């Protein structure tokens, strides 16, 4: 009888508790100031990127060479660049490349880094192979590796993504490995082993969630670095091919005219700094959010 009651209420309890849990998480999210600021700025950037065709006041590729390098005016809110193209539109469209590169590189290198790091932490022979390769790749200066890869692959946005993924994966793999090694030794991992869990379960369901927060922090760092690296690559002429605007491209072009038209550099610079800043905030926020020791309710 008791049991019947129990069974009936189980469902209710479960859904009630789940709801409560969701509310709690939401509260925890909302009260996490740096996370919220980071998310808001980032969402804005992503929205700008997605809706650039709608938002942009004019065609970012349309040139009016006679109106090159004009000061900000009602017609061109941020002025024009060396081809007489509308800078505001270009900065907005630039968000597409920069955001794509940032998100894709951080996502891809996190996935690969996670897999490599996990397996390396768990299987000794793999560890030696993977880590020597990672050491080797880390030792090659990242930007040079990227430049060489770009030279080999040719300039395109996906090649930038590939090149930067190659550059950033090893360090993520190292971070994951070093935390995974610590986690692997924890008693709770031994506990699932004792219960007869196989390697896959241990690796992906028990170790992986516990290296998530260093991974996330690292991934946000990679996001920021990827945007900056794309900028640096563009600066060195190995980034996204023109006329596709990216913040890096615009900055690179601005360098030529900075004595004459400082405003060309300002907006992409601000966007770049803002997005990197928001990512750092997001990273800090995520760390707080995933840290069981902060502000538990």
């Amino acid at each position: 009888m008791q049991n019947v009651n129990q069974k009936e209420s189980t469902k209710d309890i479960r859904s009630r508790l789940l709801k409560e849990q969701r509310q709690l998480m939401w509260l925890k999210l909302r009260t996490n100031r740096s996370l919220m600021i980071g998310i808001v700025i980032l969402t804005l950037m992503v929205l700008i990127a997605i809706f650039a065709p709608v938002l942009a006041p004019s065609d970012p590729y349309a040139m009016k060479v006679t109106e090159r390098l004009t000061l900000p005016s009602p017609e061109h809110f941020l002025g024009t660049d060396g081809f007489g193209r509308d800078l505001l539109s270009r900065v907005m469209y630039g968000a597409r490349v920069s955001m794509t590169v940032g998100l894709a590189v951080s996502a891809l290198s996190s996935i690969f880094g996670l897999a490599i790091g996990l397996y390396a932490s768990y299987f000794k022979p793999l560890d030696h192979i993977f880590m020597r390769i990672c050491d080797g790749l880390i030792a090659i200066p990242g930007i040079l590796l990227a430049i060489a890869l770009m030279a080999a692959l040719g300039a395109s946005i996906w090649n930038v993504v590939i090149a930067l993924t190659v550059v950033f994966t090893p360090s993520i793999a190292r971070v994951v490995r070093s935390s995974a090694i610590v986690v692997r030794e924890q008693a709770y991992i031994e506990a699932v082993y004792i219960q007869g869990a196989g390697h896959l379960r241990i690796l992906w369901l028990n170790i992986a969630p516990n290296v998530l927060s260093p991974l996330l922090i690292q991934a946000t760092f990679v996001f920021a670095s990827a945007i900056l690296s794309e900028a640096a690559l563009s600066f060195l002429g190995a980034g996204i091919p023109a006329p596709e605007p990216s913040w890096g491209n615009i900055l690179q072009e601005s360098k030529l005219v900075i004595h004459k038209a400082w405003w060309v550099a300002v907006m992409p610079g601000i966007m770049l700094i803002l997005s990197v800043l928001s990512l750092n905030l997001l990273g800090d926020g995520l760390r707080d959010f995933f840290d069981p020791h902060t502000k538990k309710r």
Partner: protein
Amino acid sequence: GGKDESSSTMDVAAAPTYKDTLNIAITAQPPTLDGALTSSEVSLTISGNLFEQLYTMNMDYEPTPELAESYTVSDDGLVYTFNLRQGVKFHNGKLMTADDVVSSMNRWLEVSSRGKSLLGGSVFEKVDDFTVTMTVPEPTSDVLTIISTRTFFPVIMPKEVIEAATPEGVQEYIGTGPYKFQEWKQDQYIHLVKYDDYTMIDSKPSAYSGRKEAATPNLYFYVVSDHSTRIAGVKTGEYDVCESVPLENYEDLMNDQNVTLYSQPSGSMNAFLNIKEGVLSDVKMRQAILAALNMDEIMLASFSDKELFTLAPGYMNVNQPQWAVNSGAEYYNQKNPDKAKKLASEAGYTGETIKLLTTPDYQEMYTATLVVQEQLRQAGFTAEVLSLDFPSFMKARVDFSQWDLFITSNGYQIIPPMHLVLNPTWAGFDVPEVATAVAAMRGAADNETARKAWSDLQQFMYEFGSSTAIGHYNDAMATSSNVSNFVFFDLPIYWNAVVSE
């Protein structure tokens, strides 16, 4: 500042003291100083101080004797006899004789692409210690002009140096010029010092000819590839000379009291269309492209200031009356997208991608390509930019499946046959009409006939749509205003320049 600053007034008052070093900011490290191997301007600017040739150019583009004293031509026009100057010493102290000239010039004929293509089959022979002959396979009117040129610099070096040369070039830089080679700090600077035993020609300096004083004992050519850095450097006096002023800074520097600007038409920017493969192999399509282009915009975007370029359909130096012709003007700078659309649809164009090959290593070529892309887009074409670094660009250029159009800026040549636009290996322009026209030009009895032949050829090129001139650009240089006696001819001339303290 201004470009015609006269310096002589300054010297009058008190004998000014001059610095013993001239610091020159150059844009890139030259690949080599071996003139026979390269057309690189940076290389020539430097090697011009080290080496001399038999004949050279004066202000009016006339061959003027330098290491030779005089020459005679046989009646059939096949044998040229050069009398060499006597007592000229190489930087290693050795006396220059016919042996050195013969081996230098024969090597030049063999390795330089200019020598091969225009004087192929010619040979130099020694007559006596100070007389050499040059035998050409067929008579042409431009032999002396060709050996007076600076691109693929036919320099005279000691025989031993020539013999020790490898395919990559000579091992030592030993010439007869007013400066000798001192040090090459890779990627930093090249240092030249005054050659004390230089045997001067005592005639009025005129372009590359005449008196060369080595007035400042040390020349430092600093490699400063970053534009803003080079400009900032000349503004602050870090460098006395800044080669190749970034165009965006031209206006800014005009207003700077401390800086003197020099500007000089130095070449034409040309678009080459792929006549061999792809969408543009159809002449109608090529005409459609020509119709779409707006040269004003391209040139303005690429060279930034109206002062810095000229629009003209010719490929040759606009200041050279002999070759500056206007034929084909109706095809040039048409700014007619509607016509382009019409032509394209007649040619059956259905939106195939037109591949524009370029390299970001040359800013103006790159910029021009971007503008062309946009203009083609406006005219309803699908155009895509393929941007490669320079070595890859060079490789892609010879693969006709990889591009449909590319733009290069080409320095001026003395005579049309030297121009790349006629070179079949450059962009695949190997139709028989060209060879015929070139032969007619070179074999022409007088200047007028030659000019006519060239004019016809230029007309043919526009009609055929193998290429188009986009415009003529000036090269701008800046010196700090206390530099005087500096001359900016085709290339900057430093040997008489001085810097006051």
